[in-house]
């Protein structure tokens, strides 16, 4: 009788609960089954359910760092994922976790395989590619919780550039990041520099000409003088005639578009 009463109440109250639950669920990353499953072994389930997600994740992050100091690859990787499973809200965990995976772990694997002198270049490259793939998957997962966050896109671009040496793909991600709201100004500058590195000077020139008018002169981060300097360098390299050279303040203030 009691169970039937509860069932009837649950059915009757669902129309009241469902709209509120939809709003709440959309606005916050809910605890996931896998995070609780992982956390069960650590004895923190009550803490998580009790509302101590932030402090539990912080304490696990400290533990992650102590495992990381021991160059324990599976332990660190598992611990990084556990931290963001417990509390996916802070970007700090995602960014630093991906850096450990992409930048530190290939070196640990090389050390374990005999050191830099002993390991062939092809194997080193494979380690880089495998760890970069893990890091990019991890950052893609972060984007599910922080959609269109420019810092996450930049981190993906950094992995492509610094670990995979894939300038073309990195340039694409820097451009993508530069177009997002609150993107740091340097994303667009790096995109242009990578275009130059690829030998696409005309594209870089067109991009910077569109970029410069939108840069606030009073913001030191925008580095509008540096951008103007690079425009002048490109004009020299491209042999742009004096009359056709870029005049600050004369171009439209539209956001730069894809080359």
């Amino acid at each position, binding site marked *: 009788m009691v169970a039937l009463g509860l069932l009837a109440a649950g059915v009757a109250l669902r129309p009241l609960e469902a709209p509120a639950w939809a709003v709440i669920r959309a606005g916050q990353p809910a605890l996931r089954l896998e995070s609780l499953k992982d956390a069960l072994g650590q004895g923190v389930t009550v803490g998580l359910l009790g509302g101590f997600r932030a*402090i539990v994740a912080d304490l696990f992050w400290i533990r992650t760092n102590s495992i990381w100091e021991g160059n324990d690859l599976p332990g660190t990787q598992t611990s990084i994922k556990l931290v963001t499973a417990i509390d996916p809200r802070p970007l700090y965990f995602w960014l630093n976790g991906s850096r450990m995976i992409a930048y530190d772990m290939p070196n640990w694997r090389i050390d374990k395989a005999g050191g830099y002198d002993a390991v062939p270049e092809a194997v080193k490259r494979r380690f880089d590619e495998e760890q970069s793939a893990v890091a990019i998957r991890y950052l893609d997962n972060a984007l599910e919780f922080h959609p269109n966050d420019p810092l996450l896109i930049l981190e993906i671009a950094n992995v492509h550039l610094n670990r995979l040496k894939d300038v073309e793909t990195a340039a694409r991600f820097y451009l993508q990041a530069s177009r997002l709201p609150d993107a740091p100004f340097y994303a667009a500058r790096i995109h242009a520099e990578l275009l130059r590195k690829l030998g696409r000077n005309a594209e870089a020139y067109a991009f910077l000409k569109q970029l410069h008018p939108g840069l606030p002169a009073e913001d030191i981060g925008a580095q509008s003088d540096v951008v103007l300097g690079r425009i002048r360098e490109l004009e020299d390299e491209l042999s742009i005639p004096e009359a056709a050279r870029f005049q600050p303040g004369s171009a439209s203030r539209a956001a730069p578009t894809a080359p």
Partner: protein
Amino acid sequence: MSVASVPFSFSRLSLIAGNTFLEAVRQKLFNFLLLLAVGLVASAQFFREFNFGSSELKFISDFGFGALIFFGSALTIATTAQLFFSEIENRTALTLLAKPLWRAEFVFGKFLGVFAVIGVFCALTIGLMMALLWHREGQLMNIRPEDFANGRLIAYGDLLVVGVLQWLKFGVLAAIVLLIASFSNTNLFTVVTGFFVLVICHLQYLARDAWGNVDNAVLGLVVRALGFIFPNFQLFNLADQIGQGSGLSPVVALQVAGYAVAYIGVIGGLAVYSFRNREI
């Protein structure tokens, strides 16, 4: 004079509630848990060094709500079970129920007494957390005025609403514990079952998510039924909504409050039904 010959009385109900409240605040358990929660909230600023991800003020708020939810849940379950069974074990329930007193008056009187105690606990914890946040935000405004160009960042009204909703959630939990106590024989069984139900209510949304993926039709039906039988306590986790977009939606807050009040009524009614069939 039989119970049927006297009408339901709110004054008898309030007498029982008042007595339950006094009994509860005199308990060492209440004072101990209150002290722990208040101590933890007050010490939040000393844990600032542990704060890696979120902003300092968000961390203090998370920490405060963590203390409120953790100790509030423990207090609700333990106090409700203890106060109910103390009446049974001390035989005072026999004396009371031998008089023309409705069992509904007894059960809801107990509930309101516990609910008031939890209300005091929530008010003190939330009040302290808000005072801490106000103090620290003031300090940060002096240190980094550029971050507070548009005034204070924290929506204190929203914090208060979330605190009230947590109180209502504890009300639903207290009603569940009373329902368990109404047919249970021991305090220990009630407390342990109460904690299990708390965990189930927090995780029932996972069962609801999973039922669609269950291939076995019978099992799927059972999982779906479980999603209906237990209230969804994740619904009350509104602290993350504070400071996001336009903040806490009043409509959502009202829906959640209505959900809690309706459940308190239904589960309280079931507790009365179950208690009426019980031999004291």
